């Protein structure tokens, strides 16, 4: 059921009430007095926001944005003629806007808005284009198309309705709330004691969310890792395993991601019900993508296993899906303090890592890498900090539109700021966040079967299948390649790499980047997007 909406500033000025569709979750809200109207969607999980309307009228958005809440709020000050639109600190709602010719147009759908405003002439944002190549997402108002923007997570878009061109975007995120002063940090001495408190903290964060979704059918992701499995365990203890299904997508081609035998052992140990879906056809890339790809979907997410999985959840009546998103990142939270305070610099460093450390510069030209590291590229960005790692928040930025289409809401306790604070009190454990996670989980043998404690690899091998099985599509895209036209790749060089199965293109990170590049190039060509000097 497609719940996407689109309206302009004049409509918002008259009243938002009734313009936004009812969705299953979060609840819609509307408050109004003679001076102010507040509409949108809102839910709070930590009990800190009890009177939303008066909180915002009297104190503004800061406390609301820094609470464990999920929302998209429209606040209209009738006296001053100011419309403010606020996004929660993760940016879970799809929201895009276009500003031009004295108007604003808002939409929950990038595709809807793109098609609404395409006659103005749409151009590519090169900063986001390069960002997208490496999935190096950062909190920004920019999208792939210059003319279409979004509200960065944790920010307020402020629009004087009589002079909309004077709009501004301000962040209200306070990263210091989650970074306690060192002299106030109590560190656990025992990993075992911490592990039990960690489970209790996870259960509390899960319970806080469960209490808001009464009467809605819930599901839970399941894999052979420690993240969604821990949540599934908590759910089973809180409401009983008969009250929900676990859902798992698997494939022999992605056994490192989900080992079905390990997953079944976990489910058996914890009396969980599972529904499984074989995602092999998506990982093999054997189906004809030329007929499947959409000119409205820059990253072609709708042709992946994800769209198929969400459709199946929808068919099963699931409205709330608990996931383990953020479960990898949270165990590195102690080291993340400096990265959260300096998001633009962090993004620069990510580009260094991808291009230099992983060697991805080998498939690009010097012109591309000069752009990647240019001061101008980073200097023109707004500084919008986050309280969680961007790799967590970006999951929602990229998938929220599909979730909205299917009326399924993803929920993860791993983004709860109270858990972020708790993990910073864990005993010191040498090694990266993966090692830290495993060391903590080893103390939970009543939850996890022993065979789950082995290192998992990622999904990189499957992208090689794209290169092997989609040559027709790839060559057709390269023929009129946008990346070649702007001098970021040399298409003859790329074709030589394609023709040699021992080349770098058939390895790990290169395969992922190349598949993304082809998808983006196809989207740009189909939409006839241009380059400007912006």
């Amino acid at each position: 059921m497609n719940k996407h909406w689109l309206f302009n500033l004049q409509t918002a000025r008259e009243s938002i009430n009734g313009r936004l569709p009812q969705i299953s979750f979060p609840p819609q809200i509307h408050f109004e007095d003679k001076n102010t109207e507040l509409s949108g969607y809102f839910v709070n999980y930590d009990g800190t926001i009890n009177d939303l309307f008066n909180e915002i009228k009297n104190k503004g958005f800061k406390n609301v944005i820094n609470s464990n809440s999920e929302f998209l709020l429209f606040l209209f000050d009738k006296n001053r003629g100011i419309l403010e639109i606020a996004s929660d600190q993760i940016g879970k709602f799809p929201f895009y806007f276009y500003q031009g010719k004295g108007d604003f147009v808002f939409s929950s759908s990038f595709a809807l808005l793109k098609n609404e405003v395409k006659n103005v002439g749409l151009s590519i944002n090169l900063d986001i284009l390069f960002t997208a190549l490496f999935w190096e997402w950062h909190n920004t108002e920019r999208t792939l198309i210059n003319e279409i923007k979004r509200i960065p997570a944790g920010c307020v878009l402020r629009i004087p309705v009589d002079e909309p061109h004077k709009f501004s975007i301000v962040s209200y995120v306070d990263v210091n709330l989650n970074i306690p002063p060192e002299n106030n940090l109590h560190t656990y001495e025992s990993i075992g004691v911490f592990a039990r408190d960690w489970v209790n903290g996870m259960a509390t964060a899960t319970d806080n969310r469960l209490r808001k979704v009464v009467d809605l059918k819930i599901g839970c992701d399941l894999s052979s890792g420690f993240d969604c499995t821990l949540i599934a365990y908590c759910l089973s203890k809180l409401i009983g395993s008969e009250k929900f299904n676990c859902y798992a997508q698997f494939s022999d081609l992605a056994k490192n991601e989900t080992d079905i035998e390990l997953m079944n052992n976990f489910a058996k140990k914890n009396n969980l019900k599972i529904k499984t879906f074989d995602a092999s056809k998506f990982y093999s890339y054997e189906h004809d993508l030329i007929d499947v790809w959409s000119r409205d979907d820059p990253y072609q997410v709708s042709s992946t296993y994800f769209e198929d999985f969400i459709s199946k959840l929808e068919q099963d009546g699931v409205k709330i899906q608990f996931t383990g998103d953020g479960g990898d990142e949270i165990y590195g939270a102690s080291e993340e303090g400096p990265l959260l305070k300096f998001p633009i610099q962090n993004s620069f460093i990510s580009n260094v890592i991808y291009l230099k450390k992983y060697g991805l510069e080998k498939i690009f030209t010097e012109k591309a890498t000069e752009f990647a590291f240019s001061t101008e590229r980073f200097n023109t960005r707004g500084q919008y900090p986050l309280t969680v790692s961007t790799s967590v928040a970006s999951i929602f930025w990229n998938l929220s539109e599909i979730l909205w289409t299917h009326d399924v809401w993803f929920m993860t306790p791993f983004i709860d700021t109270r858990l972020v604070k708790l993990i910073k009190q864990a005993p010191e454990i040498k090694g990266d966040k993966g090692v830290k996670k495993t060391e903590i989980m080893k103390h939970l043998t009543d939850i996890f079967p022993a065979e789950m404690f082995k290192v998992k690899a990622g999904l990189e091998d499957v992208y090689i299948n794209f290169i092997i099985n989609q040559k027709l599509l790839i060559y057709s895209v390269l023929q009129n390649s946008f990346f070649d036209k702007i001098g970021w790749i040399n298409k003859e060089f790329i074709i030589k790499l394609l023709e040699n199965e021992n080349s770098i293109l058939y390895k790990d990170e290169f395969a992922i980047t190349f598949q993304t590049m082809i998808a983006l190039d196809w989207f740009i060509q189909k939409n006839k997007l241009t380059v400007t000097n912006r």
Partner: protein
Amino acid sequence: MKFIVNERAIIFLDIDKLNNFYTIAYNLRDDEIISIRPREYLLLKYIKDNKGAAEKDLINFGSKLFKDQKEIFKTIEVLFKKQILIPVYE
């Protein structure tokens, strides 16, 4: 010999002033993020703006920021070991 700033280790931005010249840098060899404090920032910025600086220039400039020469040398040593500064032999 002079030192230059490794341009893949740190980026200097207009907003650095708003952050009171605190920033972060990256040691590619050890895959390590390093916090940069204002004195180190200003020293690095000086080196970058002048396309490199010899020891005597660093002592001269650093005397405005650091307690004594020992502190200047210690800072340079750390930045060199973390590959934020690169020596160039002329």
